[in-house]
């Protein structure tokens, strides 16, 4: 059955990467549906260029100069006023903290179902099935909404590529926002960039004997920075004084379990692997194909660490959003 699906796109640099991810996510999940969007922005300037050719059907722009990403209550109120009089079935948001905060407020104001962090949406004959990870990511929850049910859904769009090819041009309408509630009385501050936070890093780039010296670790640090990750090291590298002791991973160092562990020039002695073998994904880069690290690895490259890291750096030269 036809649904009337709205994507909420917040025109703030903090969210813009994810806006495109969200559009693509919706296109993947709702191949046969028309996708509409409501863009909330300080002005209608540049919206058409950004979203006009992205495969959306209709775009409504709610433009008012007070718009700011940090006015959570005000933005939710503007959206609530809009959706009260706009027929809709699903309202989709990307899954940033800020967008999720607005989505839950909107859901509460509309008294509709809210599903956060959905990673898959499927139209079925009876309605919609939303899937998300639950129980600290160890299980899936599949929620079935009836055909008539409305829902505000935040979508886990990380990893959804923003390659969108389409020929359609959206119909764009600029709407004036109704009477605004008082803007939130808040201030925003950027988070300081953290020093090497090995234990909490989602990505760890670690090196061992194969890096051959401090210069090798400078390369690894660059790769870690580019991936918004932290630098790790084996005991050999620390003992040789190539890198600070605080980076040591293993029996006598730190125990880490990042989403991604890149082990470069590390053979994989037990001393080291007890500190990283719980990582979700392990990439091993080593010249020795018989190195034990390959037994743990999901992916591997047999080759010189320095060469491979330099290539990774050049291929990844556009920073990956954290």
């Amino acid at each position, binding site marked *: 059955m036809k649904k009337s699906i709205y994507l909420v796109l917040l025109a703030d640099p903090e969210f813009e990467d994810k806006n495109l991810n969200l559009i693509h996510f919706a296109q993947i999940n709702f191949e046969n549906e028309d996708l509409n969007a409501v863009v909330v922005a300080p002005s209608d300037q540049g919206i058409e260029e950004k979203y006009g050719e992205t495969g959306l059907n209709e775009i409504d722009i709610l433009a008012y100069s007070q718009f700011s990403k940090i006015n959570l209550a005000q933005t939710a109120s503007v959206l609530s006023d809009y959706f009260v009089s706009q027929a809709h079935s699903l309202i989709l948001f990307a899954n940033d903290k800020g967008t999720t905060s607005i989505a839950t407020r909107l859901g509460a104001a509309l008294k509709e179902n809210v599903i956060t962090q959905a990673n898959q949406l499927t139209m079925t004959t009876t309605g919609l099935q939303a899937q998300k990870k639950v129980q600290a990511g160890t299980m899936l929850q599949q929620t079935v909404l009836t055909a008539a049910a409305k829902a505000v859904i935040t979508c886990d769009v990380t990893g959804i590529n923003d390659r969108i090819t389409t020929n359609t041009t959206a119909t764009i309408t600029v709407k004036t926002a109704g009477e605004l509630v008082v803007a939130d009385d808040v201030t925003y501050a950027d988070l300081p960039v953290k020093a090497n936070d090995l234990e909490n890093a989602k990505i760890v780039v670690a090196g061992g004997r194969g890096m051959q010296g401090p210069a090798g670790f400078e390369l690894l640090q660059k790769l870690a920075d580019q991936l918004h990750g932290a630098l790790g090291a084996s005991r050999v590298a620390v003992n040789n004084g190539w890198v600070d002791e605080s980076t040591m991973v293993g*029996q*006598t160092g730190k125990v880490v379990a990042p989403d991604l562990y890149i082990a470069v020039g590390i053979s994989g002695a*037990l001393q080291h692997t*007890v500190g990283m073998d719980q990582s979700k994904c392990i990439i091993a880069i080593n010249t020795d194909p018989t190195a034990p690290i390959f037994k743990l690895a999901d992916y591997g490259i047999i080759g010189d660490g320095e060469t491979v890291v330099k290539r990774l750096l050049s291929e990844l030269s556009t920073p990956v959003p954290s």
Partner: protein
Amino acid sequence: MALQYTDEQKDFLKMVTEFADETLTPSVVKACDEAGSCPEELFKPAFDMGLHMLEIPEKFGGAGLSYETTAMIFEKLASYDPGYAITLVSTFVALRSVMIAGTDEQVQHFADIIAPGKFAAFALSEPDAGTDAGSVKATATREGDYYILNGDKTFITNGSLADVFVGIFRTTDDGNKGLSAFIVEKSRGGITAGKHEDKMGLRLSNTTDVAFDHVKVPAANRIGDEGHGLKVALNSLNLSRAFVATLAVGIMQRALDESVKYARLRQQFNRPIIKFEAVQEMLADMATQTEAARLMVNNTMKMMDAGSLVRKEGAMTKLFVTDAVQKATSDAVQIFGGYGVSKDYPVEKLMRDCKVFQIFEGTNQIQRVTIANELNHEYRD
């Protein structure tokens, strides 16, 4: 684990595990072990949880746990570090003298002192009175409503940490019958702790000499009657032997955990060493001995909860468990091979920590004497 824990005991074990995982991380324990001391603030979270008040009845402000449950909690704690555990257990040794022979007012007074997070110490041993507790020389001289305490005590666990002592002092020259027990608050003045022992193991625990110099305590601080001091001390020690043993079970369990984990991971000749029979034998013996030790402790604790003074059983438990822990820890080092003697690996410390268990709270030699004397007594008539 052989024991059938109640839901309540499971809850408590979870609490202490959570606490120890956070407080006694391998790096913290290693740093303290190297330094040979433990910063007092490391005990703050233990005091916040009331780990030093477990045995004290609720009406005096404690948690009112049984000996059995308390022992389970301390076994778990000792598996992280027995020196840390014994620092808290030593408070109980002092406390038990008061609980066995003291008045309600004395128990309340003692509990009030330690409740906010203070240590207590039991001061019996002297340079010439170790195993032979009856030869205590430190004196308590009556002066009106007060006693004046003088003398030197040695190997006192918590010696420089304690805010309150239970000390055994000589009130008359009448040999074993001339000793009396006293609650001695640090605040009375005249108490000085000597040099902190640089020990082989249990390096997180504080062991010093303590000198009492004209310490004036009210007669109301005397525990039980004059002349009953040795009995108070020995009864308290009887109840404490199985507690020493429970810490040793914690060390055994740690030795077993580390050994099995390592033997499963360590590869030689292309297979994990746990597949080799020689290693299997050591592990099987270690596991069996640990179970037996734990059961023995548990049974003695149950007897204590039922009111027994466990003269024989306390000695047997201490003897068996603290002998068994020597082999378990030594085998753990053996299984780790060359890494076993490295301070970067966890098992050499277990070996160092466990040795003193054969010596303190009555040497294992004197335990055998006690057991034999009790047997002789049992079979008389």
